[in-house]
Every structure is written in structure tokens, then in C-alpha cells.
């Protein structure tokens, strides 16, 4: 095994940090965030409050940790929707290459791709009420064509391989071959794509909750912390800086991890990029 690329290590460390923060916050946070303590409001960083407190006296570090939960949960579920619906569609299209099914699935994909996703996400959350669930659905829908396309593109060359012909000779049907032989061979690519969509999901969730269409109060989220901080940007700029840094570091970590994984999993790319 060759040495792991430094970008992959850095990316995994950054995303691991925020995943760990979210997990720890399920059990423990430095200070409870449901209580409002106006006496403690807008304190600078101290030994008690490592990152200070916000306009309602809540501990910012604790808010960021719980906010990580929201971002990560929304993004993971949105990726889940994309994988659960997109991968079977892509596999079905590849298994029936050139058929009417393939044609319908791919044209449907092109149509969804043509939509400005954030505009439609805003439309959905605006019409059906802002909530984390609607944000997940809105982001998830646009993940479906991404995974369908990646799965189909990766599955097509697999279908020409000898071990597929062997499976066909053994009497296995297309569905079984897709599940048992094609899927394991394209899993690498799907994992890389999932990492990328995960980071895009975090950005989309932040944007939606920044404009008030994501998770609703009192659920903390990074995007809403930013929109609340905006009015105080003149007096307390740190309130606007910290949640943004959390978003950037998580997204950067996931992107580096995605690139690193792709290089590590595909030796051809590694040579081409050096």
C-alpha cells in the first residue's frame, strides 16, 4: 500500500472533527443551549465560554456543535435520497442500455439538471412551509439525477466484462447481476460522489436556513446563526465569522477527502495528475 495523499488525511481530519463534534453534542455540550441567559449575552471568549456567547447568552461553541448535527443530518439524508433512488435508476438504465427505459430515465435526468436547484428548493420550502424535512426533500430531489448519471456511466463498461457474461450464462437475471456484480464494482465511484454531494448538501442547507427556509428555531443551524449575526455585524463581527468558518472547514474537509479518495481509488488518475 502506498502512502495516503496528504489532502486525503487533511480532509478526513477536518470532516472527522465536525462529525465528532456533532456526535459528542448528542450526549454532551459545554453549556445547555435551550436556556436564555440575557445577563450572559455577547460575552467575549473566556475560560467558561471558549468562543464567547451570542445575543441571547447562549454558548457559541455549544451552538456550533449542535448546529453541526443539523447540517450533517440534513446533508446525509439528502444524499440518502439521491443514492436510494438514483443508483437503482442508473443501474436499471445501464442494464437496459438503449431501451425506452434507459431513454426515459436519462431524459428525465436532463430535465431535472436543467432546473436551477436552489430556486426550486426555495419554491418547495416556501410553499410547504420552512422545515428541516422540506429542506432535505428539496436538496435530495436534485441528488437523484446526479447518482443516476454516475451509476449508469460507471455501470456501462462493467456490462461488457467477461464475468458478467459468465453470470448471464449461469442464468442470472439483469436485476440480480446489477446487484451482485455491477454494484460492488462501481461502489468506489459512488462513495466519492456521495462525499461531494454531502459537501454540496451542507452548503445548500446553510443557504436555505440563512434565508429562513431551513431548520426552524429553536433548532440551531449554522446558516441561521449567520443570518441572526448579520444585524450585529457592526458591533460583534465574531458572531458572523465563527459559523461561517465551521461551514468552510467542513465543506473543505469533505471536498479534499472526495478528491483524495478518487485519486487513491483510481491509480490512473493519480498518474495523470502528478
Amino acid at each position: 500500500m502506498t502512502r495516503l495523499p496528504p489532502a486525503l488525511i487533511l480532509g478526513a481530519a477536518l470532516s472527522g472533527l465536525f462529525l465528532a463534534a456533532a456526535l459528542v453534542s448528542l450526549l454532551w455540550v459545554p453549556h445547555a443551549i435551550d436556556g436564555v441567559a440575557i445577563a450572559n449575552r455577547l460575552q467575549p471568549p473566556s475560560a467558561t465560554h471558549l468562543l464567547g456567547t451570542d445575543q441571547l447568552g447562549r454558548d457559541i461553541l455549544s451552538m456550533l456543535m449542535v448546529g453541526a448535527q443539523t447540517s450533517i443530518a440534513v446533508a446525509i439524508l439528502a444524499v440518502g435520497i439521491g443514492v436510494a433512488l438514483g443508483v437503482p435508476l442508473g443501474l436499471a438504465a445501464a442494464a437496459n442500455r438503449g431501451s425506452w427505459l434507459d431513454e426515459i430515465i436519462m431524459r428525465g435526468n436532463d430535465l431535472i439538471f436543467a432546473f436551477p436547484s436552489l430556486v426550486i428548493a426555495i419554491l418547495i420550502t416556501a410553499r410547504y412551509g420552512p422545515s428541516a424535512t422540506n429542506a432535505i426533500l428539496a436538496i435530495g430531489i436534485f441528488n437523484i439525477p446526479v447518482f443516476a448519471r454516475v451509476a449508469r456511466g460507471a455501470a456501462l463498461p462493467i456490462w461488457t466484462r467477461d464475468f458478467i457474461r459468465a453470470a448471464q450464462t449461469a442464468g442470472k437475471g439483469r436485476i440480480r447481476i446489477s446487484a451482485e456484480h455491477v454494484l460492488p464494482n462501481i461502489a468506489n465511484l459512488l462513495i466519492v460522489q456521495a462525499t461531494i454531494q454531502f459537501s454540496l448538501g451542507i452548503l445548500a442547507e446553510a443557504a436555505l436556513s440563512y434565508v429562513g427556509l431551513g431548520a426552524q428555531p429553536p433548532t440551531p443551524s449554522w446558516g441561521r446563526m449567520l443570518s441572526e449575526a448579520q444585524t450585529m455585524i457592526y458591533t460583534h463581527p465574531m458572531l458572523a465569522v465563527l459559523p461561517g468558518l465551521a461551514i468552510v472547514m467542513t465543506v473543505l474537509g469533505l471536498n479534499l477527502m472526495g478528491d483524495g479518495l478518487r485519486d487513491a481509488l483510481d491509480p490512473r488518475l493519480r498518474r495523470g495528475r502528478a
Partner: protein
Amino acid sequence: MARYLLTRALSLGLSLIVASVVIFALIEVIPGDPASYMMGLNATPENLAALRAELGLTGSPVTRYIDWVGGMLTGDFGTSYTYRVPVADLVADRIGVSLPLAIYALTLSTLIAFPVGIIAASRRGTWADHGIMGATQLGIAIPNFWFAMLLVLLFAVTLRWFSAGGFPGWSDPTAAIKALTLPAIALALPQASILARVMRSALLDTLDHDYIRTARAKGLTRGQAIRRHALRNALIPVLTIIGLQFSFLIAGAIIIENVFFLPGLGRLIFQGITQRDLIVVESVTMLLVFAVILVTFLVDLAYALVDPRLRRG
């Protein structure tokens, strides 16, 4: 060429039909009565019936859809429920902010991305390349609305070079362009990062071809070979991304306009949402989607002009 044009035009038409059906269904058909949503909980049955009649919600969904699309085609976007003016008038007012902003941002992003991508490709593997690639990674990871807040913090609050928001109107073009500068930079940075990466990798792909080796063998430097030969061939993927970016710029502008209190289409959608003015939301969304799909179509046509091989596709 005629066949290529025809298939592209057909798919443009189909996309627009599907888009309009989806938007119409999301707003007017799927569960929940738009009239009671717009009037809130305290609406009396009489008021609701009156609003339904006013919005034309009494007919079947099919006739309503045909009326709506027919109206849009003739420039009638409906009447805003809150402003009591035609939506077309509101759009005409606001497009003078949104369109210049999108063009400004796209221009900035292209002006930054081309030289940066070319430098990275011509000095592949050097510290300049690594530095540029690192910076673009960061640019992609930064949410544009947060970057906008940082710009306000630095240039409006601390340095006081720009105002923090608002729009003075086009009567004073210098002031108008100044007001759009921070928003355009905020929109352009993430797009420039993506474009620079695409530019670099498109150039690197092209550099593997024989004609570049020939050009190098004739004594051209790597940089000269890129500028004279590789650049034109790398333009196809770059054009694709520029087309796609228009869609991101429109979506991004919706949020950025809210950060800077710019009276554009994005802010109009949000005012529509908070005032539950569904007619405004429906028509303006359709207009934005139309713009995006049209740009995709035009980019497809542009390829065919750049690359004759695609015309046969």
C-alpha cells in the same frame, strides 16, 4: 446542422413545458388551498371565495394551467396580490438590477478564472500551481452569502469604501455600478474557483495531444503552445461550465440580493414568499427557470459553432 438545431429546440420546448407543469403543480395543485395559505388562519369563507375567484382558482387545474401559460406567453404574468400591480411591471423594474448583477459577476469570474487557470496549467506541479489549486479549493468551500458578509465587514464597515447595501438606481451609473460591486465579487469568487479548475484540467487534457507535441518540438514554450493552440480546444468544457454557472448565478443572486438589500428579482421572490403572494412567486420563478433553460440552449448552439463535430450529434 438543421437536424441538430431541431433536436435542441425540441428539447428546449419540452424542458419548458415540464418546468411550467412542475412549478404550477407545486404552487397550485398539490395539497393545500393557495387562497387559504395566502390569507392566513383568520380568513372568512366569503373572503376566501372572493380571493379564489380573483386568482382564477375556481376552474379546473387544466384550464387554469392553460390560462397561466397563455398569459405568460403574451406578457401577462398575473396581478400581484399584495402590490395590486401587474407582476410584469414588478419584473420590469427589478430585472434592471438582477441582469446587470449576473453579467457583472460572470464577467468578473471569467476575467479571474482564465488567467489563473492558464497559469496553473502552464506551470503544472510548481508552487504557483499548488497555490492556485489550494486557493480554488477554499473558494469552492466558501458559501457566497458568508463571503458577502465578510466583504461588508471589511469594505463597508472597516474601510468604508463601499456602502453595506441598497441600490441608488441607474440615474447615476457610477453609483449603481459601485453598489453592485461587492455583490458581484461575492457571487463571482466561488464561480471563478470552479471555472479556473475546469480551465486548468481542460488545458492539461489538451496538452497530451500530438499537435501540442509538434508545436513544442518546433520550439514553442509550454506557455506559447497553450496560448496559441491548446486554449481554443480547451474552450468547449469551459463554455459548458460558463453556461451552467449562469444557473448558479441566478440562484446565488437570490440570496446575495437579500444580503445587500438589492431590489432585484431574487428579493422580489422573497418578498413574495414572506407576503404569501403566490402569484409573484410562481411567475418570477418560471421566468428565472426560463432564463436558465434558454441559456443552456444557447450554449448548446455555441458548441456547434465552435466544434463542427457536435453538429452531427
